């Protein structure tokens, strides 16, 4: 299963809800304002470092670049993908859940 999260973890609880309900081993894609969850040195880094060990966490690179963030700031284990990678994740998943 692929979980899609697009809200900032500092403002909304969507990502928390996702992490609490996703099965270990599921894929998670952070895009739009959720890309802020993928960074080192923040208030959610510890949570996301744990999540990166439990889930296959991906982040949409164009959304990082738009916000002035480089892949050098990503938490270890979080994988950057482009739009093609987004499509591949969707194609591989048995189902997709958007945590809007």
């Amino acid at each position, binding site marked *: 299963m692929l979980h899609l999260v697009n809200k900032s973890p500092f403002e909304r609880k969507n990502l928390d809800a996702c992490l609490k309900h996703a099965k270990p081993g599921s894929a998670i894609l952070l895009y739009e*304002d959720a890309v802020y969850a993928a*960074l080192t040195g923040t*208030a959610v880094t510890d949570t996301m470092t744990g999540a990166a060990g439990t889930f296959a966490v991906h982040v949409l690179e164009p*959304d990082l670049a738009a916000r002035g963030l480089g892949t050098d700031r990503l938490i270890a284990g979080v994988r950057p993908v482009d739009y093609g990678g987004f499509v591949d994740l969707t194609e591989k998943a048995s189902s997709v859940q958007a945590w809007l």
Partner: protein
Amino acid sequence: MTDLTETDPAAGEQVVKRFMYVNRKAPHGTVYALEVLEMVLISAMFEQDVHVAFLDDGVFQLKKNQDPGRLEMKDFSKTYRALEGYGIEKIYVEQESLDDRGLAAADLVIPVEVIGRAAMTELMAEMDVVLSA
């Protein structure tokens, strides 16, 4: 609606009020940041005492090296550099908000005054008008 730039009928002179625009949203996921920036630029025309504050996810608006062209969106982060030219120089960023997001003043597109939450509270309380988004 209250006339925000009213004229004092007794003195016949324009009343200067302390305005604060509070930015609390990240820049590209919603339109709030751009809308507030446009409001700030318009406010420069009215010769008021303008303050601009960035806290919570609003601090992300000032992050250097934004490239929203990758999303086919406008890069308005450059426009913050024009604020000084419009006489808007009272720009405050909350320290705790930066810390929570792994950012420092050096990561921002313009020089700002970084203040703690307690100081931000005091500053907000001194304003005549606070507009927050």
